[in-house]
């Protein structure tokens, strides 16, 4: 029983990381139908930014995270402006290849300028482990879970309650009609990228703190997993991305717990395929009716 409880905690804290990353994918995809392959690398940049400001500028953790969110938002907007905006009218597959190019550029640029070495993240917060009825949980795990939930709520509020959020929803449904009613598409898309990238930045710093190890390629695998999470949840849906993230985290943990760690990723992909076959648009995805 204790083991199951502990594994649940493990799964949830892993899942919250995937969920934070999946949010960025889902928002960008929802609005311009682009699989933003570079998203995982923005998360890496966030982690490196946190590493830099804590080590060199001696920021405290909160400021490090906020500044990383700001920095990543900026990077996201810049990338959108230079790499994706010129391609908005082109076939979507072209934008996808550009996204892959940006991802390569960020990974290899960081490798070139800062070497590929794994670095240890400064421990801005001392780890304290709490014992609750035989189950261990650390303050950092709680912090990650809390921050993830907080940011998700905030995001949901922004999308549902603010004017910008309304604009985002409008653009995602029909960009041209949105333009007709006076919505500035460029601003809205930039805002979406900023928001999604800020989430990735927060995830980067949180993960740096939690695992204490960052490197230029750290965004690759979690990026793909997070995208899978977004697809499972129904891409374009914020609650879907969160749910998908937690689902994958729990699934991976469960597979490892029963001793099939070698097939961890295979099971995740298998579940992905099965879910897509049963629910072709993911769990919370909108079903689009085919017009004849």
């Amino acid at each position, binding site marked *: 029983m204790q083991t199951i409880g502990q594994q649940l905690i493990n799964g949830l804290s892993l899942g919250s990381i995937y969920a934070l990353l999946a949010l960025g994918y889902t928002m960008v995809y929802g609005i311009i139908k682009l*699989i933003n392959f570079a998203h995982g690398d923005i998360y890496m940049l966030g982690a490196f930014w946190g590493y830099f400001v804590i080590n060199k500028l001696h920021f405290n953790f909160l400021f490090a995270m906020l500044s990383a969110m700001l920095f990543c938002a900026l990077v996201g907007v810049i990338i959108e402006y230079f790499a994706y905006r010129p391609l908005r009218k082109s076939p979507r*597959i*072209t934008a996808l290849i550009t996204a892959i190019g940006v991802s390569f550029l960020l990974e290899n640029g960081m490798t*070139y300028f800062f070497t590929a070495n794994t670095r240890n993240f400064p421990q801005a917060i001392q780890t304290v482990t709490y014992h609750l009825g035989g189950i261990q949980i650390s303050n950092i795990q709680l912090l990650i879970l809390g921050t993830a939930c907080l940011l998700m709520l905030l995001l949901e509020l922004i999308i549902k309650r603010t004017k910008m959020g309304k604009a985002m929803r409008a653009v995602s449904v029909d960009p041209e009609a949105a333009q007709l009613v006076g919505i500035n598409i460029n601003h809205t898309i930039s805002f979406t990228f900023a928001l999604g990238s800020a989430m990735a930045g927060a995830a980067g710093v949180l993960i740096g703190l939690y695992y204490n190890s960052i490197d230029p390629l750290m965004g690759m695998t979690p990026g793909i997993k997070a995208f899978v999470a977004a697809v499972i949840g129904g891409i374009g849906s914020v609650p879907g991305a969160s749910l998908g993230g937690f689902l994958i985290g729990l699934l991976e943990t469960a597979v490892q717990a029963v001793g099939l760690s070698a097939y961890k990723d295979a099971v995740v992909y298998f579940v992905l395929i099965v879910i897509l076959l049963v629910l072709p648009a993911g769990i919370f995805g909108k079903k689009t009716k085919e017009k004849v």
Partner: protein
Amino acid sequence: MKANLKYNAAWLGVMVLGFVVIDACEFLGIINSFIENMLVTIGINIILATGLNLIIGFSGQFSLGHAGFMAIGAYATGIITQTLVTPIGFYLSVVVGIGIAIIAALIVGIPTLRLRGDYLAIATMGAAEIIRILINNLKITNGAAGLFNIPPLVTWATVYVFMCITTIVTVNFIHSRSGRAVMSVREDEIAAESMGINTTRWKLAAFVFGASTAAIGGSLHAAYIQTIAPGDFNIMASIAILIIVVLGGVGSITGTFIAAIVLGTLDTVLQNFGTLRMIIYSLALILIMIFKPSGLLGTWEFSFKPLGSRQRKEQSVHE
């Protein structure tokens, strides 16, 4: 029909000429093993990308799992030629690889080809990863260590010939009645269905066809490089093939050829830039895509026909 024969003869001539030129260069020592390596890599990439272009460009299905089928071919060759160290063993392994790839493509394709667009891409990516993880954990494939000391049963000539054959078969498929059925699915699935085309069947046909060419590419890769490991066939490998297809122009076989040659040469030239190579490569990729969004050649296809018709026009002018 007669006219077609003429164009086919012209193509055959080009192929023979290409072969003779490479052979002569090899004989004269202009092509050393370094250049040969580059040419063979380009040739294998053409085989892989032509198959993927058939799936993406002509049937309109977005597959991100090409490397999985390539892995099947590569491992079939790697395992079979360990015991059958003869050219026959190699050709047998190619056939076996194609067979397994077709079965795998059917298993993957029948359920997933109902999905659309990016969902299909992600499902095929997942399927390819499952194949890779299975290979990584099986005993017969020697796990993560992979297979090495695979007998070198493939020369550049074999790759060249296979490249020609797969291209001819693919192009003929596209220009046949079946090819038109496949393309109609790409243009408008509902309209095609109402014309009595079994869309699922043709989508699956293109997918299976692409998978079997991927298996051929994998077999050639295994026998030429003589080392294969599960890591060679990860998502990044699928993406590398996709890049060739998109860069050349989705739906243009000529474009695929050009893109494979351009990227292969670029990659080899960049070897001189040390650690900068991947930065230059990614920048080149982004810039080409921004300035040539529909790929280098778009959907343009090289053909002898316009040349022929111009001649005829000139003749008529003279008359």
